[in-house]
């Protein structure tokens, strides 16, 4: 006798789908290359920048942040992973098959969110800690001030970096479910995390509140030990960003339930 499937069955199914694609492992491999390669390559140039910098620049020297700047690129790679979990099914028509097997749509999207959340939480931390250690080793070798995890706020910044990547991965799932096309969702993600921050300063003042919690801007302020005067409460900004992304996820769930496939 077959019993009514539980959420864990849906989860199991989504995990099989996730792990059975080579692109999943290639993307995760890319994440490792970016996450560990960038701190390796950038430690020396950053150290030279410190040595030739002005007094003020040297006062602002934040070796923790310097070793974690890889988040800038890593957020796009982990974003691709989150987007594809939804859009690859729309692109191939597989979504019809998935929804035939699991017509309770919230449950299907919920399982996808859960798989991405679990993978990105682990991947984020698994990336942030080695990146920090590699970066600090590079700074030590170059003879510039470096940090240890025991330094004030260093641990918070490293953990924050991993969490930040996980939250961006969930933003990507939401964008994938809302936009349904890979290219469109990816372009939107790039716009959010790279373009808007570059245009910072061109927005009217009433938008500043939004920028305080924007990804890469206020939302990423936790990835530092020297407080940025623009974002004095890093974890508050991070919480704001997370709340915004949660709201977007809620909209994605509502539309995913309603739209024809």
């Amino acid at each position, binding site marked *: 006798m077959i019993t009514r499937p539980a959420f864990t069955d849906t989860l199991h199914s989504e995990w099989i789908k996730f792990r*059975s694609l080579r692109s999943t492992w290639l993307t995760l491999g890319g994440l490792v290359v970016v996450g560990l390669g960038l701190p390796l390559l950038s430690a020396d140039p950053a150290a030279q920048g410190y040595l030739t910098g002005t007094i003020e620049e040297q006062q602002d020297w934040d070796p923790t942040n310097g070793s974690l700047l890889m988040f800038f690129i890593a957020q796009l790679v982990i974003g691709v992973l989150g987007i594809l979990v939804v859009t690859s099914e729309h692109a191939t028509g*597989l979504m019809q098959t998935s929804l*035939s*097997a*699991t017509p309770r749509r919230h449950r299907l999207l919920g399982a996808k969110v859960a798989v991405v959340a679990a993978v990105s939480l682990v991947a984020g931390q698994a990336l942030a800690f080695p990146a920090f250690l590699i970066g600090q080793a590079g700074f030590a070798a170059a003879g510039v001030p470096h940090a240890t995890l025991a330094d004030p706020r260093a641990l918070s910044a490293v953990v924050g970096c991993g969490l930040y990547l996980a939250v961006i991965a969930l933003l990507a799932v939401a964008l994938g479910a809302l936009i349904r096309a890979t290219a469109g969702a990816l372009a939107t993600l790039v716009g959010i995390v790279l373009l808007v921050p570059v245009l910072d300063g061109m927005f009217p003042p009433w938008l500043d509140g939004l920028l305080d919690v924007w990804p890469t801007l206020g939302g990423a302020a936790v990835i530092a030990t020297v407080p940025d005067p623009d974002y004095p409460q890093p974890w508050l900004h991070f919480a704001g960003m997370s709340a915004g992304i949660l709201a977007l996820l809620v909209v994605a769930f509502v539309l995913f339930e309603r739209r*024809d*496939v």
Partner: protein
Amino acid sequence: MTSIDVRGLTKRYGPRTVVDDLTFTVPAGQVTGFLGPNGAGKSTTMRMIMSLAAPSGGSVTIGGRRYRDLPVPLTEVGALLDAGAVHGARTAQDHLLALAASNGLPRRRVGEVLARTGMDGVARRRAGEFSLGMRQRLGIAATLLGDPRVLIFDEPVNGLDPEGIRWIRDFMRSLAREGRAVLVSSHLMSEMAQTADHLVVIGRGRLIADTTMSEFMRANGEGTVLVRTDEPDAFALRLSAAGATVREGPESSLVVSGMTAAQIGKLAAYHDVALSELAPRRPRWRTPSWS
């Protein structure tokens, strides 16, 4: 016995009504052909049966329940709407494993359906490397995972070679023999004639016919017989008197329907009429009366 019950089903896209107040039943133990020209609304109807598209009006139930309310959907309905609907980078086995897991079905079902569709040899190959026929079989394997009582196929023979077509035809017949309700769409009457017991015909979203296959053939495309004789007018009268419908054919021939060639031959012999030609013609399948 599980059946599909479509009641007043309607779908509008903006101002266009693409499925218009459809009502029909797909009974168990038969292959029901769902026939209509391109754009008639067959796929849209099937997507509404599967809760993939929301009806603008009316309802459709499977064994009395809406699809999305089925507790273990794969054990009640198997559907192949689009053979391309697999991720090309996933192996056949992983594709089926993920589907089986979602409904809590045992892992061994994957091997069983692969065997039943003749796909066990390619289980570990990526779906993207499959030919159309193999993808079709993979899709059918997926529909069988939960051993469902109801099966739905949207144009399953499209693009297949004659051998593939025959395989799918026989397969659908065997599913119906096992007591399952089988709904299969096509835009070719000739295809339906060889597969279906029952026929639901739609055109521009509306129901045109809902009859048994044999009834439909009698009414719509039963073959005609071409008759040539030296005295066409006199023989035409005799034929009409015997209940046949007679039209004028090319070069003063007669086109007769409602009687078989054998019956016409006997009638001619009885009245001592010499026939120079007596040729049954195949039904004009490709031009059924869409309205």
